[in-house]
């Protein structure tokens, strides 16, 4: 299990290669990469604030939950904070398991938790100003599917 919280850019391809090599006995690896996207034609960057200390603990806890629940052979979580320009990679999650279904579900579960329970807050930086991104009710609903 590897959890990284950093302001530095990272190379998702190299991270995925290293993760795959380290996941002994796995028959399936699934990865998700989140990228800063521009919905309005005006976005220049995201500025991501986080809660140092709680962020790391919370991601470790969530990664452990995913590993236990889906019997994963490995979990990788990388999440950046600070100023991240349009088109740059924000974060990635990778899961390894014996079979693909557990790997897919583990990654999906982790992403749903990351969206609504990890202490990150996105602010959009546009040419005309700045605005905090609002949490989506659909993200909260996605999380509730894992209850019970």
């Amino acid at each position, binding site marked *: 299990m590897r959890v990284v919280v950093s302001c530095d850019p990272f190379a998702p391809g190299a991270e995925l290669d290293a993760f795959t090599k380290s996941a002994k006995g796995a028959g399936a690896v699934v990865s998700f990469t989140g990228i800063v996207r521009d919905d309005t034609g005006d976005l220049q960057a995201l500025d991501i604030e986080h809660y140092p200390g709680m962020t790391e*603990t919370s991601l470790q806890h969530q990664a452990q939950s995913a590993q236990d629940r889906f019997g994963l052979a490995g979990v990788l979580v990388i999440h950046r904070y600070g100023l991240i320009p349009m088109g740059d990679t924000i974060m990635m999650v990778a899961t390894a398991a014996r079979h693909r279904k557990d790997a897919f579900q583990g990654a999906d579960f982790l992403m749903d938790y990351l969206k609504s329970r990890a202490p990150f807050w*996105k602010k959009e930086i546009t040419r005309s100003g700045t605005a905090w991104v609002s949490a989506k009710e659909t993200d909260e609903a996605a999380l509730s599917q894992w209850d019970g």
Partner: protein
Amino acid sequence: MSADILYFAWVRERIGMGRETIDLTAPTVRDLLAELAQRSDGHAAALSDLTQVRVAVDQVLVDLDQTLSNAREIAIFPPMTGG
């Protein structure tokens, strides 16, 4: 007992500071938020709609009815938008 209160994102911006230390007497999170809202117009603005506020006590997310005995660090922030 004194406790550190941490603010993040637009809660921090509206209050105008990231951290303050208070003498903690409020029995629950809900009581604490009501008390903090009295401290300034910025506090009142940040804490006017509690459906838009999340709270962590000693770095664990809690409900508004959580009791605060022995809490050292209480963080107040908007719903999270990670990923």
